[in-house]
C-alpha cells in the first residue's frame, strides 16, 4: 500500500539533500571569489597609511607629558628675584627648547615608522606644514607691545612673569595641538619656533638691558663715590669721572677728573677726561693749555692725539 504523503515528504528531503552540494559549492565559490576580489582590489596602501597615525598618537601621549614635567622649571626660576628677567628669559628659552628637543627626540622614532612606505613620507610633509601656522598666529597675538614693558621696572617684571607663562603655554600648545591634528606631533621645524619666539625675547632683552644699566650706573656711581669718600682712591674718582662723562654730565666728570688729578697727577686718563670735559663745556682753549702742560712733562701720545683732534676741530 502506497503512503503517498510519506513518499512526498521523503522526496522533499531527497531534493533538499541534492541541493546541499550545489549550495556548498556556490557558497565556497562565492567566498573564494570574494576573497580573491578583496586581495586583488583592496588598497593596502590606505590601510598602511593609517598605521603611522596610530603610532603618532601614541607618540603624542609621550610628548604630551614632557611639557608637564618641564612646567615646574620656569616657576622655580621665577622664584629667584635677584635676576628675574634673565631667569625668565633663560627659563623661557629652556621651555622653548625643551619641547623642541623632546619633539626632536620623538622625531627619529616617528620617521622610522614613516619611512616604511612612500605614503608615510607624504604624511610627513603634511605634518611639517599645518601646525606651525597656528603656532605663529598664537605667538603674534599674545606677544605684548614693547612700549608697555618700558614703563617701569616693576611693570616689566610683571610683564615678564606674564609673558613667560604665555611662552610656556605656547610651547604646550605646540605639543598639544598635534593631538587634535595628527600632523602636530611631527614637530614644526625648530627654526620656525625660534623665529617666532625671538621677538618676545628681544623685546624683553632690550627692556632688561636698559633697566639694568640705569640701575647699575646710578647705584654703582653712588657706591663708588661713597667708597671714594672713604679711601680717596684716585682710581675710584677716575671711574666716577669716566662714568659721568659717558652719561653726558661733563661738569661732574670735570670735577672728579680734577679731583683725581689733585690726588695723582700722573694718571693719563684723568688728564684726558679733564680735557674732554672742558671741550664739551665749550672751554676748548683751557683744554688745549691743560693738554700742552701735560704733554710737556709726560710726552703722552694719547694726549697728543687728543690735542691734535681738538685743534683740528675733529673732537667737539
Amino acid at each position, binding site marked *: 500500500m*502506497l503512503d*503517498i504523503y510519506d*513518499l*512526498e515528504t*521523503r*522526496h522533499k*528531503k*531527497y*531534493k533538499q*539533500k541534492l541541493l546541499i552540494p550545489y549550495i556548498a559549492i556556490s557558497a565556497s565559490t562565492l567566498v573564494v571569489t570574494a576573497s580573491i576580489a578583496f586581495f586583488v582590489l583592496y588598497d593596502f596602501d590606505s590601510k598602511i597609511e593609517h598605521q603611522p597615525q596610530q603610532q603618532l598618537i601614541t607618540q603624542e601621549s609621550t610628548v604630551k607629558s614632557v611639557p608637564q614635567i618641564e612646567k615646574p622649571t620656569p616657576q622655580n626660576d621665577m622664584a629667584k628675584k635677584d635676576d628675574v628677567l634673565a631667569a625668565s628669559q633663560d627659563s623661557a628659552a629652556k621651555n622653548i627648547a625643551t619641547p623642541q628637543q623632546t619633539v626632536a627626540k620623538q622625531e627619529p622614532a616617528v620617521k622610522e615608522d614613516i619611512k616604511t612606505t612612500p605614503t608615510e613620507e607624504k604624511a610627513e610633509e603634511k605634518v611639517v606644514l599645518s601646525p606651525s601656522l597656528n603656532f605663529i598666529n598664537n605667538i603674534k597675538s599674545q606677544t605684548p607691545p614693547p612700549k608697555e614693558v618700558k614703563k617701569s621696572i616693576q611693570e616689566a617684571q610683571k610683564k615678564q612673569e606674564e609673558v613667560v607663562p604665555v611662552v610656556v603655554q605656547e610651547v604646550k600648545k605646540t605639543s598639544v595641538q598635534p593631538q587634535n591634528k595628527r600632523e602636530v606631533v611631527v614637530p614644526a621645524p625648530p627654526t620656525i619656533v625660534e623665529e617666532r619666539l625671538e621677538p618676545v625675547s628681544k623685546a624683553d632683552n632690550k627692556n632688561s638691558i636698559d633697566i639694568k644699566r640705569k640701575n647699575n650706573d646710578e647705584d654703582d656711581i653712588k657706591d663708588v663715590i661713597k667708597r671714594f669718600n672713604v679711601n680717596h682712591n684716585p682710581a675710584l674718582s677716575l671711574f666716577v669721572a669716566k662714568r659721568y662723562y659717558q652719561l653726558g654730565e661733563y661738569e661732574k666728570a670735570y670735577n672728579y677728573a680734577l679731583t683725581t688729578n689733585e690726588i695723582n697727577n700722573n694718571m693719563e686718563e684723568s688728564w684726558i677726561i679733564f680735557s674732554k670735559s672742558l671741550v664739551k663745556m665749550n672751554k676748548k682753549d683751557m683744554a688745549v693749555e691743560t693738554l700742552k702742560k701735560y704733554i710737556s712733562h709726560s710726552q703722552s701720545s694719547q694726549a697728543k692725539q687728543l690735542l691734535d683732534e681738538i685743534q683740528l676741530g675733529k673732537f667737539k
Partner: protein
Amino acid sequence: MKPSIYENSRDVFLDTVNANDYIQLERVSSIYQSLKNSIEKPLKMILLYGKPGTGKSMFLSKLHQTLISTQKAYLYKTPILDESEFFKTLAQDLYNMKYDSELNFTQFMKVVENTELGEMATPLILLDEAQLYSTTMMEKIRLLSDTRKVKFVIALHKTEKEDLIAKEHFQTRIWESIKLDNASTSELKIYIQKKLMKANCLDTANMFTQKSVNLIHKLTNGNYRNTNKLLYSLFDIYMHYEENNPIKIKGSEISTTIIEMSAIHTGLINA
C-alpha cells in the same frame, strides 16, 4: 468499472517470468540466435550467466517455449536439490521412466547410456538458478552431458568474481558460455515502450521521453527487474494521483518527481 490506463500499465510491469512477455531486443535477439546455434552444435553444456535481473530466466523461458515445439526441452525453473529426486525427474521427463525407489547417479548413468536416441534430437535440459546446485551435483551433470545423450543449458547468476570463476570452470570443459548484461538506455526505452504497447498502453508508452528513460536508466542501471519494479511503483503512484490529485499528473510526460518517488519507494534511492 473500467480499469484506468495506469492500472493496465502497472500490471505490465509485474515481476513475473512469462515467455509471452518476452521483449525481443536487438542485442538480446542476437544472443538468443547464437544460443540457438549453440544448441544445434554438438556442445555438451551451455552456460548462460549474468547479474540478477538481466533476463536470464526470461531468456530460458523464451528458449524453452521456442524449442519445445521442435525437440524435447525441459525447463527447471527451480533447482531440484535432492540428487535422487533430480535423477528421478530427469528419468521421468526424458525416458518416461518412473522410479518409486531411490535413483542414484550410477543407476541413472546406466539408463542414459543404454538409451538410443535414434533420429530424435538430443533432449535439452534447461536449469535455471543453477548456482544453487552443489559442486558435486554440477560435476555429475557434466558427466551426464559427456554421454552426449542429453544437453544442458545452465543459467546462473553470481557476483562478478564468482562469475569469472564459474566461467573458467566451465571453459575447461569446452562449454559454451553466454553472458547477459543490463540494458543500455536505448534498449531500456525500447523495452519499456514495447512492453506497454504489447499491452495496448500506447498513451503511457508515449509518455516515456528520452529524458525520463535516462533518469530511469540512471536509477536502475538498466536492470530489467529493477526497471519493472520501478515502473510498477510509478504507475501505482499515477493511479493514486489519478484518483486523489489529478493536477499532479497533468503533464504529457512521465513526471520526474514521480519517477524519483517511485525510486524512493522501491529503495533505489535512499532518502
